[in-house]
């Protein structure tokens, strides 16, 4: 790994300013970025650690929405009673997301900002209608989580921007499920992830892993027209078959979800 400078800003303003430098990159939990640096894919001259920004809140707002600070660890989310009660699909999804050591340090913000379509929370939170609050050089803005992804490992976050908070609306009478399919060992990146939120009989479907970014399906039929590429996890044709099957199963599971 190439030596780099490590900064640990204590305020959001400092962090944003530091991130404007051309070869500076943010570090949240550090898992994803360390992997990329060790592989030589990323060679930043400066890493900006976000861990002193105090973005770890986890609370339910008065309108019933879940507000999660971007630096909340996935493990904290996983163990939260509040989340389990109000959004049990998130708790269930986290159980098989990577492994415990990763979840111990990985953060919600880092997870969402990475842009890897094989990850579990982007499609799920997109389907749940979650919103991200983003701080940047031009101030604060919000974006649906769904709108964060513009391509494979590409997000709509601009230079100097970082996610500070994620808000997930109350489920209310909606029911949700997330299913993923691994085609090699159980602990593999999925070949396909399907998130379904049922509002009565109306499904919101977001598909990921087989696509280059979380992708909303307007209808079940739209699945056939999806652009899917072959890779290590399976051929395009096979992933299409998985999609047909898992769509059906995810809708079924969502319909029967306890909440």
């Amino acid at each position, binding site marked *: 790994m*190439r030596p780099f400078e490590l900064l640990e800003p204590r305020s959001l303003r400092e962090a944003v300013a530091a991130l404007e430098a051309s070869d500076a990159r943010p570090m949240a939990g550090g898992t994803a970025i360390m992997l990329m640096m060790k592989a030589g894919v990323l060679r930043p001259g400066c890493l900006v650690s976000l861990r002193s920004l105090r973005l770890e809140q986890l609370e339910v707002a008065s309108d019933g929405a879940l507000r999660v600070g971007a630096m909340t660890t996935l493990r904290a989310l996983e163990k939260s009673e509040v989340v389990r009660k109000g959004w049990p699909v998130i708790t269930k999804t986290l159980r098989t997301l990577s492994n415990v050591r990763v979840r111990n340090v990985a953060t919600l913000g880092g997870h969402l900002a990475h842009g890897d379509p094989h990850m579990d929370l982007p499609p799920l939170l997109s389907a749940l209608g979650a919103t991200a609050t983003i701080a940047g050089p031009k101030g604060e803005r919000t974006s649906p989580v769904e709108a964060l992804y513009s391509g494979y490992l590409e997000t709509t976050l601009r230079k100097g921007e970082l996610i500070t908070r994620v808000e997930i609306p109350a489920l209310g009478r909606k029911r949700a499920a997330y299913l993923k399919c691994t*085609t090699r*060992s159980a*602990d593999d990146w999925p070949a396909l992830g399907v998130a379904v939120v049922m509002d009565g009989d109306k499904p919101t479907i977001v598909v990921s892993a087989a696509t280059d970014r979380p992708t909303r399906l307007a209808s079940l039929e739209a699945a056939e027209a999806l652009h899917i590429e072959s890779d290590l996890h*399976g051929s395009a044709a*096979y992933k299409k078959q998985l999609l047909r099957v898992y769509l059906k199963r995810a809708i079924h599971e969502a319909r029967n979800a306890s909440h």
Partner: protein
Amino acid sequence: MKRATQATETPQVGRSVPRLESWLKVTGKAEYVHNLRLPGMLYGKIFRSSVAHGRIKRIDASAARAVAGVHSVVTAAEIRKLIPEPYYGPAFHDQPILAVGKVRYVGEPVAVVLASDPHVAEEAVHLITAEYEELPAVYDEVEAMTSKAIVHDELKPAGTFPDLKHLKGRKNTNVALEFRLRRGNAEKAMKGAERVFEHRFRTQQVMHTPLEPLVSVAESTESTLTIHTASQSPSFVRIEIARLLGWPENRIRVRVPFLGGGFGAKLYIKLEALVSVLSLITRKPVKISLTMEEQFFTITKHASTFRIKSGVTKDGRIVARDCEVWWNGGAYADIGPRVAQKSGFTAPGPYDVQDVAIDSYALYTNLPPAGALRGFGIPQLVWAYESHTDLIARELGIDPVEFRRKNLLREGRPQATGTLMKDAALEKVLERLEVLMDWQKPFDRGEGTVRRGRGIAIGFKACIANTASLAAVNINADGSVTVYTSCVDMGQGSDTAMAQIAAEVLHLATESVTVVHSDTDVTPFDMATLGSRSLFHSGNAVKLAAEDALKKLVQLKEELHLAADTPVAEVFRKKYGMRAGSVTGAGSFIPPYTPPDEDGQSDNATPFWMVGASGVELEVDTETGRVRLTRLVNVADVGTPINPRIVETQLSSGAIMQLGFSLFEKMLFDAEGQLRNASLAEYKIPGFLDIPEHITNEAVVAEQRNGPFGGKGVGETATFGVSPAIANAIHDAVGVRLTELPMNPEAVFMAMQKK
């Protein structure tokens, strides 16, 4: 932990003694070369070829050399000043220490950057550039037989093997070795057969991925060299390094502590020659510690193609078998030629067929080299012959177990080599598997989208021959005992087994015996720890050494006119005036062997057979092809289990490793020979969630009469039958036959679609 020398009449063999090194391992204190740091040590990081086949036009390391902290950059040019012909290998001296003139696979080591900070070395590697004149490459083993892309301009068989001599200087071929066996007249018997079946099976290239990646450290003076290495074959390392340097063996010392896994990856020469020569050039200790990724570019398991044809009577007797096997050896032969030959002769399977033809070819291709991996070619063969045998049984409407029972080799019958079967409990193993699988009970195959199936398979292996093991046993003046063996404990429990054997002879508690780790200055020659040979060979040597020590102690007592029951300490006091000194027993074991003739016939091809069978029950999700094993049963003949608990865990461990190879492991290459999945993120190995819920492992009651206390090896046995048992179960469940590994969900699903 208290390990006082304890005399005992309790038998030590057959005891499930906890491994002697248990506390070291659970406290993280066990020694591995991975941990070794020496003062003044340099780290070496390797620059590797980016093309699959090409002549090296130039290597530019100037920018790398200029990096602050870089000690030096070494290529073959510097190495050849010390070793003009820097080629090594157990069967062929075809592998250069660093690429000479040509590269033959993507990832081949071309240069090394040395620095005292490994980060500096790694960064500098990125600054090296090389230019290649690319040559056509070949990747498929069958294609390599006739391809115009020739990997080696000339074959270089190692002089130590008389049976390879005729290959010297051969050109324009990718065939490193062609093993041929003819018994009876397969062609004629095939023509006369009532039914003939022919199938083709393939297996994929995979990697051992020991969790301690390959690592070696060398330190030297002008006249001595010490190599600390994670190696299963320290004696071979000493011989080969001595040969390369032209030094006498007694100036080279090879030390091996514990291995963090081996599985056949850490054999012969891997990094040892490189670190040795680097240490001699720099006059500093040098360590090269591979990353997990780099292991994939170092040594792998042979992919294979096996065409198998059987002539059969209508009522299910196999009357002829014709086997043709192509082994994908990658760019350097390593031990591939032995795989082709020594495993090759079991290709027809454990069946009584007296008209047999086998042709087994070791091929060169432009892929990372293939060598020994737990099973040594047997799993690939069993995959084919047990799938094939199962298909025949189905076609003839005969129960798979019954069909096998009808055809299994019995004691005293000639195997394909002509060697008479001895102490191979094939029938017993099959019978026991049948019982454990409830095979006679009806089996519910389910309805709806999830179908169930079950399958069995049985395989065998001939221990390689003929190989030697020597050992020494000291009875110290206080009565404590030390065992010296170059057998390497890589997790299979050999230290414990050797201690048990010595303890049994000397009537001591196993826990009080010390086993000295491989150190070629101290421990005697052992061919290598591989191929499940050690319990038998090293164990026999240790037994002989312990018996010799005991005999010498008895003689000493007689010489001193002491009573037979005189305590040991007193004997030494009388002999040496104080409680000091020792009695050293030596043991040397090499079993008898007859090399095969030009038809592969021999009356003594192997000192012992291994027998392993597996049964599987599984579910197939017909909508996705996903397979879930609900039950895995492994039955084996290991002779007398020296340590029943270790035997059980070895069976379990071999089977689970083979599960990975059966269901999802595969090295994936693109059209230019670039490996696309060289890391554990992209090359998945079995984890906790992949383990079948019900696994049963059993050794049948058997005896290997020429083994130490009736015992023999077990490390590979449970790898034999797993893959075909799964394929047979899938066929049982959904009526499709997979002929290629791995049997991933897509393969299952696509096969169902084709039907």
